[in-house]
């Protein structure tokens, strides 16, 4: 079973408006409410591509009940710890005229120590049946900053490959534990390394060091529409066409989903990168999270520009 962990889920509310600006009052022509958080997004997108997974983490209050019910309707397996308080709401405003996205995020509910302990006991039990672990997103108040490192080390005891997409100290703790695949927030890596990561050479220099920590694959964004992939077979720059992109919301989760499916289907490295990029691209072509169809993703694969870097 593929297990996704979302410690700080959210109800994502997307509003599409024209000519959005601070200080104005806007009526959205379209509002979309969906369960969110990186792991949950990956679980839902995997489901769209026919892959079962189980979603874990913490839920609270009315928003938590909404997420729980929405995932049940999608027939996803869940194993959340419910806590007091309220699961956060994330608001995204998509300006379809100016092609600008604005986001607003809450911190999430406080997680008491006993709820965290209960999560760890559930997690350890889930590991008995896990073949791939996906960790991602921010941490709610009360959760230790090194949690991703702890979870990756627990998974490694069962020889379970791990994927992490995070930022800040939680990413640092994950990298120290050596995940199999890491989606690197390049602004954080830039701060950690003290090197400006605007040039490809600098990115390669900093991210290549992660291989020494046991990270097999590392992915980091490059100039918004491109990603650099550090793989066991070399380093690749992949770029999609910016003209057809409507919203970049949740595209990183679509990319992770593509990498997972590529791995499950034993695609060759270059095909796996193309598939992951096409997943992110297809997701970015519409406001709704997720994919129109597998065929739509595959149709984009040949259009992904892929260059192997020396």
């Amino acid at each position, binding site marked *: 079973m593929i297990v996704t962990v979302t410690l700080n889920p959210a109800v994502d509310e997307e509003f599409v408006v024209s000519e959005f600006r601070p200080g104005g009052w806007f009526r959205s022509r379209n509002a979309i409410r969906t369960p969110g958080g990186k792991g949950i997004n990956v679980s839902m997108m995997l489901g769209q591509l026919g892959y079962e997974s*189980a979603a874990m983490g913490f839920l609270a209050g009315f928003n938590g009940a909404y997420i729980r019910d929405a995932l049940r309707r999608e027939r996803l*397996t869940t*194993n959340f710890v*419910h*806590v007091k308080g309220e699961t956060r709401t994330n608001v995204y405003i998509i300006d379809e005229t100016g092609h600008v996205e604005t986001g607003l995020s809450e911190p999430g509910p406080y997680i008491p120590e006993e709820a965290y302990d*209960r999560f760890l006991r559930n997690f350890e039990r889930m590991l008995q*049946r896990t073949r791939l672990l996906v960790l991602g997103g921010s941490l709610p108040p009360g959760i230790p900053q090194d949690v991703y490192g702890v979870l990756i080390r627990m998974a490694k005891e069962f020889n379970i490959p791990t994927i992490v997409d995070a930022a800040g100290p939680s990413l640092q703790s994950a990298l120290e534990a050596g995940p199999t695949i890491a989606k690197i927030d390049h602004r954080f890596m830039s701060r950690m390394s003290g090197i400006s990561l605007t040039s490809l050479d600098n990115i390669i220099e900093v991210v290549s060091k992660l291989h020494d920590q046991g990270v097999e694959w590392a992915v980091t964004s490059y100039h918004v529409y491109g990603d650099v992939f550090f793989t066991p077979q070399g380093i690749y720059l992949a770029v999609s066409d910016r003209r057809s992109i409507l919203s970049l919301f949740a595209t990183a989760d679509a990319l992770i989903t593509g990498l997972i499916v590529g791995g499950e289907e034993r695609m060759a490295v270059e095909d796996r990168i193309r598939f992951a990029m096409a997943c992110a691209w297809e997701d970015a072509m519409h406001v709704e999270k997720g994919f129109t169809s597998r065929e739509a993703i595959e149709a984009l694969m040949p259009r992904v520009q892929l260059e192997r870097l020396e």
Partner: protein
Amino acid sequence: MRIGELMDRDLTSVTENTTLREAIEILSQHNLTGLPVVDETGILVGFISEKDIIKASLPGYCDYLSGAAFIPDFNQLSEKLRQKGNEFVGKYMTRKVIAFSEDDSDLHVALSLIQKGLKMAPVVRKDGSLLGFVSRAHLIEYIMREEPQE
């Protein structure tokens, strides 16, 4: 229809070593009437319901009245529950659990739940590992939703 099509794939569960206090908290927070009990590998080993917990606190009344509906004194129950709170689920759970496979038919599951007077029951894989649960509410919701066949 297979029960796998309408079951809830939620794995919320406890182990035999969970205290009754924690089980009550989980029942309340998850809005459930019972919890599957699993071992460390996720294999179903029992089931604990809210009725089992009340029965643990006031066994005489429940046995005598065949139910927990006529609790005479909340102070008495409250005191007993506090005393029992640190005891383990394993002592009070039902070990002979009625569980279903996801290939079981909706009709078979509905009849079993009604005949046995159960509000919910676990669904397991062939190896006995927990897959989720099915409830009377799921079945009623499904029956209401389905269009009549011509």
